[in-house]
């Protein structure tokens, strides 16, 4: 059976008819074609699927889409563009905070939420705050550098979502 919901994703309203057991991450990837939100596990542990739901970082693989009728979702596609990167994206690039890039969209969405909610941050705070995002490549060191570097720029320019 299909359920009808409306979702605002990256500022655009969508009316959707979806099977009731559809996860938010599948709505984003399969119904809306937003493939930047990744799926890295089936245990809700990797954080690759992190998006902002009404302004809070959540794992899109752990949310039933029909639970969030009327809500606002921001994905990695909604925070910056190639020409105008979000300060967090720019910092990840400048600090070599990604290698394969699989974890990066979730890492960035998580990091933006972390910086917004918990200033001032130190290295330990960043590591603890990103505990829900796993990276198999970088060893986290450069990710911590990038988040700390982006933080002051975000207070100047918050970016979307």
């Amino acid at each position: 059976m299909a359920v009808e919901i409306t979702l605002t994703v990256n500022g655009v309203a969508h009316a959707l008819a979806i099977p009731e057991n559809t996860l938010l991450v599948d709505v984003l990837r399969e119904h809306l074609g937003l493939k930047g939100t990744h799926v890295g596990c089936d245990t809700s542990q990797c954080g690759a699927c992190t998006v902002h739901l009404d302004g809070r970082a959540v794992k899109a693989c752990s949310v039933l889409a029909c639970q969030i009728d009327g809500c606002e979702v921001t994905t990695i596609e909604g925070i910056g563009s190639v020409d105008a990167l979000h300060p967090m994206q720019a910092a990840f690039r400048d600090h070599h905070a990604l290698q394969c890039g699989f974890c990066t969209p979730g890492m960035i969405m998580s990091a933006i939420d972390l910086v917004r909610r918990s200033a001032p941050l130190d290295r330990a705070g960043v590591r603890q705050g990103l505990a829900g995002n796993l990276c198999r490549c970088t060893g986290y060191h450069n990710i911590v550098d990038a988040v700390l570097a982006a933080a002051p720029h975000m207070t100047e320019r918050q970016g979307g979502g």
Partner: protein
Amino acid sequence: MKQRLAAPSDVIDLAGVAGMGGIEAGQGVVSIGAGVRHAEVAGSPAVRGVLPALSALAGGIGDRQVRHLGTLGGSVANSDPAADYPAAVVGLGATIETHCRRIAADEYFVDLFETALKPGEIVTRVHFPVPDRAAYRKFAHPASGYAVVGVLVADFGGNIRVGITGAGPCAFRGTAFEQALADDLRPEAVDGVPVPDAGFNSDLFASAEYRAHLVRVMARRAVADLLGR
């Protein structure tokens, strides 16, 4: 559902139900709505002020994304053997309020994923008595953050309560610890207390014997924290 432990024909979302939100801290009790998310408890200055052990417990659940979604009601209704809140429910002697009655902590947790809740019974609030001091320590699973073993120790004017999660099929009171600590409230006092591992959980992460060992270590650390050492 996602773990395929349950395949219900219908699912009811409780998120929009009125009267299941809000945190009230006062008159010796912290009362928290069942729909309150872990991040709200962890971030509440009121909870941090009167019951910092509960604040820290909530802030140590899973990770930030998990704390943005998980609720107190969902945690205590699920009775996951490795969940953190059950240690506080048992260790603080909380009262579980449902839409039709109040259930004492000691009667509430029954077994693995099983509570005293009847089918259709909905948890609306949990009332946590405020002790003179309390501390919670867990040995967190390195991937999920769940408690391989977690121990909450609370001092109510010399009466000690100890709630243990992770070790058995559901949270339970450490009565032998309570007696030993009532006589001698020092970390060393737990060393001689026997922790029989019969019926303890055993899985690929930790044997029953290892969990019994962790119970004593976490209890000792919780007492040290409680004493401010």
